[in-house]
């Protein structure tokens, strides 16, 4: 039996509360197929029962699982390619001058999904900046989804995933193959810390970052949530840092103290009045 409109509205409300994600209408099939495994795990007969249980108990654990399950995780290595070119040609060299005394480079990848983005950052660093090998380079990869974080940590990708957007020379250099599974090498994994973080609740972060990536996640939030997340992110961005959002995303109308800069075919943002 298909879910009722009331059930779907309930799930939609719950998801907005949990993760800020606004589910588009017409996604009832997606809701049903993503929630079915959660129902099963909880020993419930079907998704209707899961929803009844959520209405009754408001279980935070189940609610969180539901919110994680309906996220869109689409990503790829070197997605949109230009931001990574900009990092290589201008941004990392500039940061290296700026941070020469303290010899550290901190990057936050704030919706890392299955890990292609943080591993791409790690590849750019390892391939083009050998002198950073004795710096303290840390990439923090966070996401709301535990399942995605597990995949990030494993560093394992299918042939289809490594076929997408990843230059062959990087594949050969930075991955080990076993059958049709490709695993990122330790030298990349060593650069990345993985942590669960919900962008719409408090962030347990104290570090300041040189570069922040919040790409292709703002589209799932309303304007107010978007503005709030970005203004909190700005507080964690070092004075000369760089912020990247997705190529189809915009900060227009959010009233944030940001300055837009075009580097190597990509747009990034910096503190206004630096």
């Amino acid at each position, binding site marked *: 039996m298909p879910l009722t409109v009331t059930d779907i509205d309930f799930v939609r409300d719950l998801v907005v509360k949990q993760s800020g994600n606004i589910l588009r209408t017409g996604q009832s099939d997606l809701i049903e197929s993503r929630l079915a495994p959660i129902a099963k795990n909880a020993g419930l007969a079907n998704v209707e029962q899961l929803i009844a249980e959520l209405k009754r108990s408001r279980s935070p654990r189940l609610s969180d699982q539901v919110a994680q399950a309906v996220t869109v995780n689409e990503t790829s290595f070197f997605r949109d390619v230009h931001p990574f070119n900009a990092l290589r040609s201008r941004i990392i060299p500039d940061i290296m001058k700026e941070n020469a005394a303290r010899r550290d480079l901190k990057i936050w990848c704030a919706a890392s999904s299955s890990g292609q983005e943080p591993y791409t950052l790690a590849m750019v660093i390892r391939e083009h900046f050998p002198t950073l090998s004795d710096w303290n380079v840390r990439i923090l990869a966070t996401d709301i989804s535990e399942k995605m974080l597990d995949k990030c940590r494993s560093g394992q990708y299918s042939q289809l995933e490594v*076929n997408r957007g990843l*230059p062959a020379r990087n594949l050969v250099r930075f991955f080990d193959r076993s059958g049709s599974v490709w695993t990122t090498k330790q030298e990349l994994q060593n650069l990345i810390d993985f942590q669960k973080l919900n962008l719409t609740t408090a962030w347990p972060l104290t570090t300041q970052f040189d570069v922040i990536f919040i790409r292709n996640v703002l589209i799932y939030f309303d304007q107010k949530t978007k503005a709030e997340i970005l203004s909190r992110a700005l507080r964690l961005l070092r004075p000369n840092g760089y912020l990247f959002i997705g190529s189809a995303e915009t900060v227009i109308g959010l009233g944030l103290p940001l300055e837009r800069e075009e580097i190597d075919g990509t747009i990034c943002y910096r503190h206004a009045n630096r």
Partner: protein
Amino acid sequence: MNALIIDDSRAMRRILKQIVTGLGFDVLEAGNGQEGLDVLFASDDIGLVLVDWNMPEMNGLEFVEAVRAKPEFERLALVMVTTESEPARMARALMAGVDEFVMKPFTPDILVEKLNLIGVKACVAS
């Protein structure tokens, strides 16, 4: 501009042809490396070659080596489309001058993304 597709499987040539035709290329075909060289040397408007690895007579790696030995083809875009996925062998092909690899099976998007990666743009169909 022309694209040359070299594969001993006619079905695979048809799949590839459909994709690159969609990008505005005219397509020339060959069934092995030797035929591919003959077509390449006889034509003066080939801007992209998609070549399989394992083929009778002359394989893809030998084809790539023969092409890169000629200075006039130094900058020709060469993409291997192959079931070969042994990293050491792929590394060898890259050394020989292959620009990119697409591992079979693949989707049209994957091929187009790889072409973007090496700066091959869609041609405006004439």
